[in-house]
């Protein structure tokens, strides 16, 4: 038995490293959809039909695709709330909290400005959403880097607090007496609504999302600030040796992530609901975590992934009508996706072993999530 194997060809190392970067999530997607197929089959539906309806409900028509984009817009921004802190090695899952508080802050800003020019109002709303969402996640970063509190736990708990505060304010001090069965704040007013992108039925929040992801990419991958963040995320001791202001950079990065989620809340209020009420709390913040992980925390990869996951959400209604599956069916798919993606991350660095050619070996990089979770930022 000879163990002679063909050697990897020239450049195979770099080639398969980048192929692998895409192959792992794609494999995760395939496995998830297969598992989801088993689930709907058990639920009594025809698997083929379900897949067909999902494609139809998300990308099948211009109308459904626009619906998908409307859902993708906030996901891009909430995904940044996980992906930006991930650059400094933190696993933050506080997007939901930042989103609802951003929404609340933007409504308060709109009310405070009363009859001002709609442009001014929208600008103030966006600013308020960003500042409050940013401060919320900055607190997570500060707790971590200054006090050593685990950022995943604290951001999760802050979600509960944020939702509690939101409900308290919406159902109490700021409740519009006219909102009877669904407690809401006073509407921000038709004039102040965030309109649709010309030629589309999709509001400007999508542009916010695209610009947010692009800006995050430039900041994190092309700027000196992003370089420093990457050093901190990779090895905080090396960052200290370089004299980098570790705490400051961690807190600022978290604040930027929170600001993105807060802006998502503002866009939901200004473009979709026109008021702050419990309809805001539909889990865009949590789904954003899934998007960020699927995109491997890469700011640009978030865009297509958000569209894909937005499509899954958009198809929920059609599944309910056409296949008589419960509305929560797509949540099951999201759950499966999340678990599979996390599990399959452990294949990274070993995937090449399964390929017939190129036995490229890298001393397998540990799961970034696990690594980040146990690294101390300070």
């Amino acid at each position: 038995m000879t163990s002679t194997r063909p050697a990897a060809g020239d450049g195979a190392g770099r080639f398969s490293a980048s192929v692998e970067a895409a192959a792992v999530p794609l494999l995760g997607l395939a496995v998830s959809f297969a598992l989801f197929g088993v689930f709907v089959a058990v639920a009594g539906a025809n698997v083929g039909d379900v897949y067909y309806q999902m494609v139809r409900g998300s990308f099948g028509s211009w109308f459904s695709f626009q619906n998908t984009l409307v859902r993708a817009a906030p996901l891009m921004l909430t995904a940044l709330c996980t992906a930006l802190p991930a650059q400094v090695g933190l696993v933050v899952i506080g997007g939901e909290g930042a989103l609802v508080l951003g929404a609340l802050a933007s409504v308060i800003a709109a009310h405070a400005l009363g009859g001002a020019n709609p442009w001014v109002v929208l600008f103030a709303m966006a600013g308020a959403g960003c500042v409050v969402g940013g401060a919320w996640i900055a607190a997570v970063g500060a707790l971590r880097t200054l006090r050593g509190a685990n950022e995943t736990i604290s951001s999760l708990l802050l979600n509960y607090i944020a939702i509690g505060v939101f409900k308290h304010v919406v159902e109490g001090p700021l409740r519009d007496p006219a909102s009877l069965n669904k407690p809401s704040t006073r509407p921000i007013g038709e004039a102040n609504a965030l309109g649709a992108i010309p030629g589309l039925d999709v509001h400007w929040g999508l542009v916010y999302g695209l610009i947010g992801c692009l800006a995050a990419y430039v900041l994190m991958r092309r700027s000196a600030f992003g370089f420093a963040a990457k050093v901190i995320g990779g090895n905080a001791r090396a960052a200290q040796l370089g004299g980098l202001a570790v705490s400051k950079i961690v807190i600022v990065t978290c604040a930027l992530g929170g600001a993105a989620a807060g802006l998502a809340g503002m866009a939901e209020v200004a473009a979709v609901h026109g008021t702050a009420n419990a309809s805001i709390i539909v889990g865009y913040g949590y789904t954003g975590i899934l998007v960020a992980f699927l995109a491997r925390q890469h700011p640009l990869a978030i865009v297509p992934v958000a569209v894909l996951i937005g499509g899954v959400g958009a198809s929920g209604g059609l599944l309910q009508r056409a296949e008589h599956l419960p509305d929560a069916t797509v949540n099951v798919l999201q759950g499966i996706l999340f678990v599979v993606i996390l599990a399959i991350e452990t294949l990274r660095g070993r995937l090449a072993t399964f390929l017939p050619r190129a036995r490229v070996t890298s001393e397998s990089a540990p799961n970034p999530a696990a690594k980040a979770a146990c690294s101390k930022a300070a």
Partner: protein
Amino acid sequence: MSAVPSPVAPPRRGSPPLLEADRLSKRFGNFLALDDVSLRVEPGRVHALLGENGAGKSTLVKCIMGYLTPDAGRIRLGDREVLPKSPRHAQSLGIGMVYQHFTLVPNMTVRENLVLSRPRLPFVVDWATERAALASFLARMPFQVDLEAPVRSLSAGEKQKIEILKQLYLESRVVILDEPTSVLTPAEADHVLSMLHQMARAGEISVVLITHKFREVTQFADEVTVLRRGRKVGHGGVGDLTPSAMADMMMGGASKSSSLPPSARSSEHEAPADERDRGTDEGAIGHARVLIDDLHAEDDLGVPALRGVTLEVRSGEIVGVAAIAGNGQEELVEVLAGQRMKTAGTVTVSGAEYEPKRAIMRALNVRCLPEEPLRNACVPTMSVADNMALRVFDEPRYTAMGWLLSRKKIAQTATTLVGEYGIRAPSIHTPIGRLSGGNVQRAVLARELEGKVDVLIAANPCMGLDFAAVAEIHARIRAARDRGAAVLLVSADLDEILALATRILVMSEGRIVYEAPLEGAEPAVIGKYMAGHGAHVAPDERHASS
């Protein structure tokens, strides 16, 4: 034999099996790290593996241990062909490895560490039986350890002995050691290696020893295999090869005798005259550059580690701080490097108060070469080029508009430095964690010495380097000194300090306890102070021994 039923089988009689690696090749991308290398480890012998940094030594043993899968070649153990799939698999075949870093759980006792290292543990461990079995196991061993001591409390030498003991406990018949002595003092190293040597003599084990120290090879090995750039370039009995012949093989015959290690030229004198160039030329030493005054700091557990360190380094001199591991020198370097908070005291550099912040480090030109650079000074997942830019990436010459990184300029600088310092890397875009240990060290040194350096703090700068690299790094540290840098050199290697330092300070239990005289520093006296027995050395005794 003991009457207690032993979960550890008695040692298998008979000699350990022959280990043969036959024509192994291993490629990383388009970089050939191992090219048709064969290694034959005879039963009961100590086989040294020599080679310059990046020669492929670690890659070879990683293939044998099943960490890496060779692209070609086979491995035979005894008369069986084996292909270890994982270190655990190799272990089950009786091949074990001791790493340069420790793999023990610090908060557990030696006994717990040993028992837990077994591949198949019962669901409930019967500690009474295990204790008795371990006692009878230990009784057969050539050296004793305290089984109940928590590993945390052990010195590096003791930990390394436990690592070896663990291999014997796991019944490894072939024990591979990758630079096992780099964390040890020379005395500890001798002790550990002579123990291995005896056990090989007794036919208990065979040993593969990777080392950069010729002294260890000539003293403790039977055979040598030399690698160079992934190829096997030499092999022979230790008796038949002089250190300089080995050095020639390592360096491809290109080594000039001046770059040979002291031990390769003469086994008697560790540090010949040119190695002892201390730059004591009075004119060169300038004003006080670094003033450390009553510095205090705590270790990770909150126990005081620095208890009032006061010292001064002038420009143009190298101050060596000699200390045994665990006496506060790590913490001293960490405080200066910004990796630990001081609790009291001041540090002044060039007359200004020093704090380890980027702007201050840059303004005062303070650089640092900490030990274990991969852990302390690099981001292993980032490229060589990026790691080399760690100090400068935000400077105007590497940025556009003050914030946009110029990847091109970063790559240019890295290419220059890689050439200048002879760093062997597949490319400057390779993650630095994939470089061999010595090349990581060089890369960090290149980064830290770039540009104007007023203060250099170096900790064990030559740990794990081949002799040519040691000579080169010493030369570069001297050159920095000659350009006016104040160098604070912390090292566990007294020879290194004796060779480089202008002044020698001894640190013990968090304080500077002794300053050796400029001329005629006595290793024996310094050693006593390092061991904390300084108070017993009367001044006249010092003179008597010189």
